[in-house]
């Protein structure tokens, strides 16, 4: 059976993981290469690296990080943050990433999805959607959640699929960092509107909320950051909990 993927997300700025640096078992606290190795050993199913530095230098450093990680960690790696062209994508993929995530640049230039898919294959292109609720609708935001694009998030997901995206990384701005749980309603709506996998992101505070994201939200994968970074739970704890609730996980 296809397992629900548990994906740790590392927000990287100038070569350092900036969210949640309370790793107790690691000597080099906050080093993305060490954290990647540790999560791989814990049983992470994939890893996502987001460059939040958004400067040329920060991106260059992340490329070096990817080079190092991909020589030691043999699970799928996604990289995102500030990728604006197919040339940026090529650099990221050549450094060892398997997939690239695009958000703002996809909204500004939707044909980037199609061009990327044509050159590298749809499986490489992750459409990242930062969504925020307004009344009964959700809108896709750009620039790290600062600007409302005015585009309906559900319609954007469908359009992204048609343009060639192979996966959707759905981040709820409302839930991000709240520990209240994922935006289940939004996740379910998007997952049911597309036929490509959807990764739920934003709001995880405990393993029960992950169960909800999978069972009610129909998420194919869950992205985790602080829940893991602060050492509250290990990937093993989470997988055991999911398995108890009859969700297939990979061991």
């Amino acid at each position: 059976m296809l397992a629900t993927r548990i994906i740790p997300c590392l927000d990287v700025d100038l070569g350092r993981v900036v969210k949640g640096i309370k790793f107790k078992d690691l000597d080099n606290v906050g080093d993305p290469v060490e954290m990647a190795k540790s999560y791989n050993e814990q049983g992470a199913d994939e890893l996502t690296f987001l460059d939040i530095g958004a400067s040329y230098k920060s991106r260059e450093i992340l490329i070096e990080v990817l080079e190092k990680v991909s020589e030691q960690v043999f699970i799928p790696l996604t990289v995102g943050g500030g990728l604006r062209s197919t040339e940026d994508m090529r650099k990221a993929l050549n450094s060892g990433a398997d997939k690239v995530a695009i958000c703002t640049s996809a909204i500004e230039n939707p044909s980037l999805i199609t061009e990327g898919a044509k050159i590298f294959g749809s499986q490489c292109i992750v459409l990242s959607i930062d969504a925020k609720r307004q009344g009964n609708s959700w809108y896709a935001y750009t620039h790290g959640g600062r600007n409302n694009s005015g585009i309906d998030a559900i319609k954007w997901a469908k359009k992204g699929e048609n343009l060639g995206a192979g996966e959707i990384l759905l981040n709820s701005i409302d839930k991000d960092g709240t520990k209240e749980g994922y935006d289940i309603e939004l996740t379910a709506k998007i997952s049911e509107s597309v036929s490509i996998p959807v990764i739920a992101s934003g709001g995880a505070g405990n393993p029960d909320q992950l169960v909800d994201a999978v069972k009610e939200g129909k998420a194919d994968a869950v992205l985790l950051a602080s829940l893991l970074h602060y050492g509250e739970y290990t990937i093993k704890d989470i997988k055991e909990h999911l398995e108890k609730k009859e969700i297939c996980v990979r061991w």
Partner: protein
Amino acid sequence: MIAIIDYGAGNLRSVKKAFNHLKQDTIIAGKPEDLDKADKVVLPGVGAFGSAIEKLRETGFYEATYDWLYENKPFLGICLGMQMLFEESLESEDTRGLGIFKGKCPRFKEGKVPQMGWNQINITRESPLLEGIKDKSFFYFLHGYYVEATDTGTVIATTDYFINYTSMIQKENIFGVQFHPEKSGETGLKMLSNWLEIC
């Protein structure tokens, strides 16, 4: 020396990195003559069946690969590289595959397509490729089409994704796997090192 065939599609670096991690010399083969230096060949692949076969033909790799397979020399096809060993794919019905294995490649009709993620293998036949790998082990899959092998004797493992389909095949020294061993963690590396030992 392991030659990884580069016909201009797909990310070969992860395959190369996995073999380098296993302390193997690899060459990214950009032209058919590069295969002369190799004793093992890997055909990786992502993307579409038709354009991949077309690129194999354009680069002269179609014939070189066919000759290699005909001589039963050590070979591993990964993902689309496995599918291309079959006769045809419903992804592009006019294109003939390498036809080493009998059967075709239909598209998944249920579930999210492509199938993306970790799924299990059901071992159906003993194979040296599976030495030390348990039944129901997880591997990383990423594909929208799957292999329907007519000659079930060549099947060594199957996988369940709404249907039960062939995920590993073997004919003497020729192996094909639908998943990505280079992205399947320790189990994947174990399988690759098994392949190195056999050949």
